[in-house]
C-alpha cells in the first residue's frame, strides 16, 4: 500500500496563498473549542508556542515533555538569532527577499508556498516575542537592533546577546505557564511518548511512559501534535543536547507517517573539536565568529609549529583562497566540507589533528582587543573554559559537527502528516529548509509553526469531529499499544548482555559520521547499510541495561532511543544512496564539479523523498512529492 502525497498547497498567487487558505479553512466556534482535546508532545519553541496559543484559543491541551520542565527543551541552546522580514534597516529586505534567500539557501529543495508563508509571518513573530518581554538587543533610541547573519546580504536578524533561543523559549514557556495556570493546558513532565495510537486510520492518542515511576499510560485526543525536534544525535557526537532523539517521530513513522528527506542533515562549521574518546557532545560556537575570524591551516601537513610561529606564507587561508567573493562567510555546508577536505589532506591541527584554525589575530590588530571582546567575549570565554586555551593569544581550533536535521516527518501545508490528525512542527517536520537551513531560521520556523500556522490550520481537521468524544483509553487499540510498549521496555532489560547502551550508540555514530556525514559515496553508504543491521543485531543480543522499569532508569530510556536511531540510520543511508545528486547538506562525492563543489540534478531530483514504513521485514518505499518552482529561478549556488 502506498500513500499519495497531497501537499494541499492553496491556489492563487504566492503572496495570497496563506490569506486565501485561512479564509477557506473551516473554523471551530469559540464555544466549541473546549470540546476538543489536543495533545502536544515536546515543549520547545514549536511545542510550547503551539500549546500556549491553542490554550488561549480555548482548546483543551495536554503537553508532554520528557524533561523535568518545559524550559529545558533544546531550543534553549540556539545562540545567534531569529530572522524576520521587518526591513527596519531600510536595506532592501522584504518578505519576498527572505522567501527567496531561504529557498536558495535550501538549495532549491523546499516547497515554495511553505517558505513564503514562513517569511510572511516572520514579522509577527518578532512582535509577539517583544510583547512577551523578550529582552532583544536594542539601540539607544530604544528600538530593536539587527545584525547580518550567516552571510545574508541584509540585516534581518534579531537577537538577545548570544542567548536568543533561550529568550524566545522562555517567552513561549511563560506563555505556556500562563495557560497552565488558567487551566486550559495540562502539563506532564518527565513523560516520554513511546507510541501513537490509531483508530480507523486516524490519530486517537498516544502512549506515554512516566520516567520516574515507569508507569505506561494512554492519553486520548482528537489530534496529536509532535514537536519533538531533530535527530542529529544519530551521529552520537553532535551539538544537540544529550536527550534529543528521533523516537517520537520514528514511532509515528512506524504507524504510517511518511518520513521525508532523512538524509538532509546540517553540519555546522564552527564547533569545538573533540578532545578525547569519552567526549559526550560537541559544543557549537556562534557562526558570527566567522565575521571577524580568518580560517586557515598550515600549508605543509608536517608543520608542527605552534600556530603563532607559523609565518604568513606557510599558512593556507583556504576559504579566502577558494571563495574570494564570500571568503570566510561562505554558507555552512560549503565551509564544513572545506574543513573536512583540509583534515582529509592531513592538514588538521590540534592534538588529535581534528581541527582548523579560526584566527582573530588580524581582527584584534585592526579593531582592538576591546571591540573583539565586546563582540565575541562570551564565546571566547566559553572556548577557554572548554579547551583551557586563550583565543586572544592563539587561534581557536574549530571543526564541523552535526547540528540540525532538515529532514523529518512529511507534512502538508497544514502541517499534518500522512496520518490524519497527526501533526508535526518545527525541526520534527521537513517542510521549510529544503536541503540546507540558513542561520537564524530554525527559531523562525519553530515559532511560525507553533504561534501562527498550526493554530490556524488545525480547526480544518477538528471541525469534522464536533461532539465526538476521544477514544476511551481502555479501547483495545490503546491496550494493545500499551502492551507493546511495556514489552519493548521489558525486552531491553531482559537481554542482560555485556555492553552498555552508550557503547552501541558511539559505534553507530562512528559509522554514520564516516559514511553518511559531510561526504557520502555509494560504496560508503552500502558499507554502512551492511554494518548498521549487524550492529543492531549485536545490540539486540548483547546490550546491558541494569535496574528495573519502575523507577528512574536513564540507561533504559536511552536503550529505546538508540534502538530507534538504528532504524533511522538505515533509512538515512538508503535515502542518501537514492539521491544521486549533491544538494545542500547532502554531498555525494560522485556528484561534484571539477573543483569539488556540489552538483545538483534538478531534472531528476527536484522532489521530496518521502519514505513509507512497510513493516519490520521490508524496507520503506519511497514516494515522491515533486517540487515546482514558479517564483525562484533554479541556479547553481556560487560563492566564488
Amino acid at each position, binding site marked *: 500500500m502506498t500513500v499519495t502525497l497531497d501537499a494541499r498547497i492553496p491556489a492563487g498567487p504566492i503572496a495570497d496563498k496563506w490569506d486565501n487558505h485561512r479564509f477557506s479553512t473551516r473554523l471551530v466556534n469559540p464555544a466549541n473549542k473546549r470540546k476538543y482535546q489536543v495533545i502536544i508532545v515536546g515543549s520547545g519553541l514549536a511545542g510550547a508556542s503551539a500549546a500556549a496559543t491553542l490554550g488561549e484559543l480555548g482548546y483543551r491541551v495536554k503537553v508532554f515533555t520528557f524533561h523535568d520542565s518545559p524550559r529545558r527543551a533544546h531550543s534553549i541552546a540556539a545562540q545567534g538569532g531569529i530572522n524576520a522580514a521587518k526591513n527596519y534597516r531600510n536595506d532592501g529586505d522584504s518578505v519576498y527577499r527572505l522567501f527567496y534567500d531561504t529557498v536558495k539557501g535550501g538549495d532549491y529543495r523546499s516547497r515554495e508556498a511553505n517558505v513564503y508563508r514562513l517569511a510572511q509571518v516572520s514579522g509577527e513573530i518578532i512582535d509577539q516575542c517583544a510583547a512577551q518581554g523578550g529582552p532583544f538587543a536594542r539601540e539607544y533610541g530604544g528600538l530593536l537592533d539587527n545584525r547580518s547573519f550567516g552571510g545574508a546580504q541584509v540585516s534581518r536578524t534579531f537577537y538577545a546577546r548570544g542567548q536568543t533561543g533561550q529568550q524566545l523559549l522562555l517567552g513561549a514557556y511563560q506563555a505556556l505557564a500562563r495557560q497552565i495556570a488558567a487551566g486550559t493546558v495540562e*502539563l*506532564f*513532565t518527565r*513523560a516520554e511518548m513511546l507510541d501513537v495510537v490509531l483508530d480507523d486510520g486516524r490519530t486517537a492518542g498516544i502512549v506515554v511512559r*512516566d520516567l520516574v515511576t515507569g508507569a505506561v499510560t494512554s492519553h486520548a485526543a482528537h489530534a496529536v501534535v509532535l514537536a519533538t525536534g531533530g535527530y542529529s544525535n544519530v551521529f552520537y557526537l553532535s551539538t544537540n543536547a544529550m536527550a534529543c532523539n528521533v523516537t517520537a517521530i520514528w514511532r509515528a513513522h512506524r504507524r504510517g507517517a511518511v518520513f521525508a528527506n532523512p538524509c538532509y542533515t546540517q553540519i555546522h562549521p564552527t564547533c569545538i573539536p573533540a578532545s578525547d574518546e569519552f567526549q559526550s557532545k560537541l559544543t557549537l560556537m556562534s557562526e558570527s565568529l566567522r565575521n571577524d575570524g580568518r580560517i586557515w591551516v598550515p600549508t605543509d601537513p608536517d608543520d608542527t609549529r605552534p600556530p603563532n610561529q607559523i609565518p604568513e606564507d606557510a599558512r593556507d587561508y583556504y576559504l579566502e583562497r577558494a571563495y574570494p567573493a564570500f571568503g570566510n562567510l561562505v554558507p555552512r555546508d560549503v565551509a564544513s566540507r572545506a574543513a573536512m577536505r583540509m583534515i582529509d589532506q592531513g592538514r588538521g591541527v590540534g592534538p588529535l589533528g581534528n581541527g582548523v584554525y579560526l584566527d582573530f589575530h588580524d581582527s584584534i590588530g585592526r579593531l582592538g582587543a576591546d571591540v573583539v571582546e565586546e563582540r565575541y567575549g562570551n564565546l571566547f570565554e566559553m572556548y577557554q573554559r572548554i579547551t583551557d586555551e586563550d583565543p586572544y593569544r592563539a587561534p581557536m581550533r574549530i571543526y564541523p559537527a552535526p547540528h540540525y536535521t532538515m529532514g523529518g516527518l512529511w507534512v502538508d501545508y497544514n502541517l499534518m502528516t500522512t496520518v490524519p490528525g497527526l501533526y508535526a512542527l518545527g525541526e520534527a517536520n521537513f517542510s521549510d529548509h529544503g536541503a540546507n537551513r540558513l542561520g537564524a531560521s530554525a527559531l523562525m520556523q519553530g515559532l511560525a509553526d507553533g504561534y501562527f500556522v498550526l493554530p490556524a490550520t488545525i480547526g480544518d481537521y477538528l471541525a469534522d469531529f464536533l461532539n465526538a468524544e476521544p477514544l476511551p483509553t481502555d479501547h483495545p487499540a490503546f491496550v494493545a499499544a500499551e502492551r507493546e510498549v511495556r514489552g519493548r521496555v521489558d525486552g531491553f532489560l531482559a537481554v542482560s548482555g555485556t555492553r552498555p547502551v552508550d557503547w552501541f550508540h558511539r559505534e553507530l555514530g562512528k559509522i554514520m559520521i564516516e559514511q553518511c556525514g559531510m561526504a557520502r559515496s555509494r560504496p560508503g553508504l552500502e558499507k554502512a547499510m551492511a554494518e548498521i543491521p549487524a550492529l543492531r543485531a549485536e545490540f539486540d543480543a548483547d546490550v546491558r541495561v541494569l535496574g528495573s522499569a519502575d523507577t528512574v532508569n536513564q540507561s533504559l530510556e536511552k536503550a529505546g532511543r538508540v534502538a530507534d536511531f538504528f532504524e533511522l540510520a538505515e533509512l538515512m543511508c538508503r535515502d542518501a544512496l537514492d539521491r544521486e545528486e549533491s544538494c545542500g547538506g547532502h554531498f555525494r562525492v560522485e556528484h561534484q564539479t571539477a573543483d569539488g563543489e556540489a552538483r545538483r540534478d534538478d531534472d531528476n531530483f527536484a522532489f521530496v523523498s518521502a519514505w513509507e514504513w512497510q513493516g519490520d521485514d521490508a524496507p520503506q518505499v519511497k514516494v515522491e512529492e515533486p517540487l515546482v518552482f514558479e517564483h525562484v529561478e533554479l541556479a547553481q549556488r556560487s560563492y566564488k
Partner: protein
Amino acid sequence: MTATQPKPRTSRPGLLGIYRSDLGKKYAMAISGVFLLLFVFAHMVGNLHAFEGPEQINHYGEALRELGEPLLPRTMLLWVGLRIPLAIALAVHVHAAYALTLTNLRARSGSYDGRNYLAAGYASRTMRWTGVITLLFLAWHLADFTWGIKTVNPDYVRGDVYGNLIASLERWPVFALYLMAMGALGLHVWHGAWSLFQSLGINNPRFNAYRRIFAIVFATIVTGGFVTVPIAVQLGIIG
C-alpha cells in the same frame, strides 16, 4: 510524573497581611532594626558622658527622665517616646526573626557533607546567635543598670549612673561579659546595617557600594564607642 501542587497561600490585605508574608517580616525586621540602630547609636554617644565625670553623666541620666518637662509629667516622654516604642520594635524584631528562623529550618532538608561557604560571612551566618546573645545581654543590662536587681549589681544606687557604672564594670567577669556582648552586637550590626538596605529594596548602582561601607563603619563606631567605657573603667581612667 505530574508536577507537585503548591500549598495554598494567598495574600491578605492590610499591614498585618503584609507581615504575614516572609518578605513582610523582612521589612518589619529592617524597619525595627533601623529604630534599634538609631537607639544604639544614641545610647553609645550618651555613654561617652561618663568621660566627663559623675556630675555630667548623672545629669544626662536625669535629663532623659525629665525630657518634655514641664509640658509633660516626669518620665512620660521617656516612656511613651522611647521605652515603649523601643520595646515594640524589639518585640517585632525578635518575633519576625523567630518566625523566619522556623520557616527557614522547615525549608531545608538535611545538610551538606562539608558545606563550603563562598560568600556568606561569619557575621551573616551567626545573626541568629549574635541576636540571641544580644537579647540575653539586654536582660542582664537592664537588671544591672535600670532595674538595679541586687543579685546582679549589689551596689546599685538609683540615680547614680556613674557609681553604678563603676561598681558593675570594675568586676572582671562583668567586664568580660560586656566585651563579649558588644562583640556580638557589633557582628549583628555589621550584617544587619547592610542587610536592611537589601530587605527594604534600597538599591541603586550609584550608591550600592557605600551600603557595605556604611554598615562596617557604623558597626565599628558603635562597638568601639561602647567598649571604651568598660575599658576605661578597668584602666582606672573612669573612677
